[in-house]
């Protein structure tokens, strides 16, 4: 961790005069900058182009002050706007026309096809073509409406003729058809309707004759023929409209691929980038105090880079500056320089820093977490088969890690990609503990538990936890005590680093208490025999529990008040007990995991480690369930053990990361 110094720089040009202003950058400059940004965005929107980021940043115009740079940019923007104007007009009118055609088609209950054939464009200018297309559309709409009215009138006439023919009661015979073009004129309908009315009148007067029959039939046949033509004619019009739509799309396409427009697009994008960069500069400058000729600022600088930074500032100011080095006082919150960890461990970094950032004088626990996290995960998820799946997934992720741009994938995918190393370590750990407890896709009998070591009543491996849950519980408590001692050792180290020997003393007494209590617990066979602790083991109790508690009380009291010491000691006593018991969840979740897998083994009918062919689909379903839901639960409990029990023993998480200013 770098110890940061603060430097005061007074940059002087001619003399000190005027008062320090709160807003160093004049509002006009900031306004001008955001104005340019808005205008560029507006133009891009009008041109129907996406405001994407450029991969290589364009250089700023070589002018001394921000104001001049912005003036230069504004000039260029106006030029670009002039160039973009004709394109904008064409694009707007073609978009309007396309929208209109789409509306018309929707009115005719016809969806436009999404695929477009590439046809050759007419040799006229786009504006003229669009104008023609607009006229064509109006014409087509008119014809469609005409056909519609014709169809209604025709069906009207047909129903009237049927009425007449019913009352005439004659036999239907073949009649000649008069070919009439569609749509027929107003005269045609007027004539037919007049004639029909006459016939109807004659009928009511009961003066039927053969001539009328023939005439009625002819009229009916002709009109029916007309009606039959209607769908065909409509389809023809729709086809023409679709062609028109295609043409419009082609025009748009040709504009989009126009090299001139591409140049304009690129100019706009680079102007946008420049404006953004200047905005960043303005933000930085507005944090500095200044008067007419002087700039004043304070910064945190890592100790190692101090000389280099001072040298650079002197260069820029051409020696006309005053720099004062101030080491941080005890009241300052010194930012922590966080060393980047290898990419393999980045998931652990994220998990640790979710709790908070380390203080400068604290040990950064990321690498410790990379050891303990998979260790605890492996105990709860002990399984050779499923561990191997996790390991394989992790290796696949690591293989693709370098090939995928992490900023261009979704949220969930990003988590997966980042946690490649986590998967590999957790999978490996699960495989190891799977061997110790004989788990292969659950307690299938393929593997036999391997006894690694036996310490007093504790067995590490070598038993089947399904049938000996108490052995597993003891094992979990043992792990808990080891983990908590590790945390307390780290606390002692941190206290020495912070130069607080008294606190280090308290932490060592704490370790004494924890291990002493643990020893008594083993010796007298559990907390249920607590009466014997006081009766037979009174000296042991005094030596291993009462003494450290009393010492903690005394040492705390010497730095504060006596009551505070007692309070603190009670807290320590309870916390030691509580946190140790909390580790029994290792056993509980291990049992949950095994039982879940055992259930699927029974359903699948696996006995004595023989996986039949029919059992495999059920085992796959079970494994998917175990890996997803159960894996998530185990992961959360693992995280909880770190965030609540382990890390707070030595890690405050109240640091502020050092985020240096980066301006090109």
């Amino acid at each position: 961790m770098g110890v940061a110094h603060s430097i005061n720089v007074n940059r002087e040009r001619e003399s000190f005069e005027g008062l320090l202003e709160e807003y160093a950058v004049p509002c006009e400059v900031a306004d001008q900058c955001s104005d340019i940004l808005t205008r560029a965005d507006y133009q891009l929107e009008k041109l129907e182009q996406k405001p994407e980021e450029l991969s290589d940043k364009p250089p700023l115009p070589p002018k001394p002050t921000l104001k001049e740079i912005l003036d230069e940019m504004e000039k260029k923007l106006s030029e670009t706007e002039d160039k973009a104007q004709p394109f904008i007009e064409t694009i707007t009118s073609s978009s309007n026309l396309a929208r209109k055609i789409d509306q018309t088609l929707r009115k005719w209950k016809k969806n436009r096809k999404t695929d477009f054939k590439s046809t050759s464009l007419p040799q006229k200018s786009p504006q003229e073509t669009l104008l023609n297309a607009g006229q064509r559309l109006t014409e087509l709409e008119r014809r469609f409406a005409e056909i519609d009215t014709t169809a209604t009138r025709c069906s009207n006439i047909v129903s009237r003729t049927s009425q007449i023919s019913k009352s005439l009661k004659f036999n239907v015979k073949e009649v000649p058809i008069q070919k009439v073009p569609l749509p027929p004129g107003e005269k045609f309908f007027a004539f037919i309707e007049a004639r029909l009315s006459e016939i109807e009148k004659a009928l009511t007067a009961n003066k039927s004759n053969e001539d009328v029959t023939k005439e009625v039939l002819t009229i009916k046949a002709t009109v029916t023929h007309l009606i039959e033509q209607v769908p065909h004619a409509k389809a023809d019009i729709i086809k023409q409209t679709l062609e028109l739509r295609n043409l419009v799309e082609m025009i748009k396409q040709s504009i989009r691929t126009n090299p001139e427009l591409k140049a304009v697009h690129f100019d706009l994008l680079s102007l946008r980038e420049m404006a953004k960069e200047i905005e960043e500069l303005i933000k930085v400058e507005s944090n500095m105090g200044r008067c007419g000729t002087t700039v004043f600022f304070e910064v945190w600088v890592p100790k190692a880079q101090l000389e280099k930074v001072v040298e650079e500032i002197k260069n820029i100011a051409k020696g006309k500056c005053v720099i004062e080095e101030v080491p941080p006082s005890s009241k300052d919150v010194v930012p922590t320089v966080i060393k980047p960890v290898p990419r393999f461990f980045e998931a652990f970094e994220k998990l640790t820093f979710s709790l908070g950032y380390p203080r400068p004088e604290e040990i950064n626990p990321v690498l410790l977490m990379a050891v303990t996290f998979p260790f605890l995960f492996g105990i709860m998820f002990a399984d050779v088969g499923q561990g191997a799946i996790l390991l394989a997934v992790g290796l696949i992720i690591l293989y693709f890690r370098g090939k995928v741009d992490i900023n261009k994938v979704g949220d969930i995918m990003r988590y997966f990609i980042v946690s490649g190393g986590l998967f590999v370590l957790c999978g490996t750990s699960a495989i190891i503990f799977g061997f110790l407890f004989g788990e292969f896709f659950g307690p299938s009998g393929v593997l036999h538990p391997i006894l690694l070591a036996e310490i007093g009543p504790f067995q590490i491996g070598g038993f089947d936890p399904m049938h000996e849950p108490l052995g597993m519980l003891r094992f979990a408590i043992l792990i808990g005590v080891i983990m908590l001692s590790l945390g307390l050792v780290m606390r002692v180290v941190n206290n020495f680093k912070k130069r607080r020997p008294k606190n280090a003393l308290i932490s060592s007494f704490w370790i004494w208490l924890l291990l002493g209590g643990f020893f008594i617990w083993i010796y007298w066979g559990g907390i249920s025999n607590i009466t014997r602790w006081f009766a037979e083991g009174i000296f042991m109790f005094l030596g291993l529990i009462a003494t450290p508690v009393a010492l903690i009380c005394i040492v705390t009291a010497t730095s504060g008040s006596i009551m505070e010491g007692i309070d603190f000691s009670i807290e320590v006593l309870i916390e030691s007990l509580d946190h140790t018991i909390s580790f029994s969840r290792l056993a509980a979740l291990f049992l949950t995991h095994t039982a879940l897998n055992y259930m699927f083994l029974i359903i699948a009918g696996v006995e004595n480690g023989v996986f039949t062919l029919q059992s495999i689909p059920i085992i796959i379903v079970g494994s998917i369930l175990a890996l997803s839901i159960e894996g998530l639960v185990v992961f959360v409990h693992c995280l909880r053990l770190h965030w609540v029990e382990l890390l707070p023993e030595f890690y405050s998480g109240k640091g502020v990361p050092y985020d240096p200013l980066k301006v090109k």
Partner: protein
Amino acid sequence: MDPTVMASIGAAVSIIGSAISASYAILTCAPALASVTSEKPELGSKLLIAIILGEALAIYGLLIAFMIISNLSTITTEEAGLRAILAGITMGGTAATASVGISYCGPALMTATVEKPESYTVNILGLVLSEALAIYGLLIAFMLNV
């Protein structure tokens, strides 16, 4: 009563109690998470812990119910049957208490985290301590039944 019937009742109590508890915890936490993520989506992964802990309750119940059912052939005496019932009641009951804790602390944790993300580490204590209740119940139920 027939020991097998008693054991079956125990299994049923365990899974029904845990499932209701899990459902109650999720149905209070999930809407809170939804409203939080609509404001600050980046907190989603951090706060998902409340829902996962709620869901874990159902898994514990499933475990105990399953253990009882797989031991049915050995439950022949009245005493063994009674132990099975007690195991089921222990699991179901502790899951219910844990669920009440989670469903109060989860939404409170979420709303507090939106305002002050640094308060997360303190406020999560309530959530994980309520969840620990179910773990204790799980251990005891397991021992009763073996």
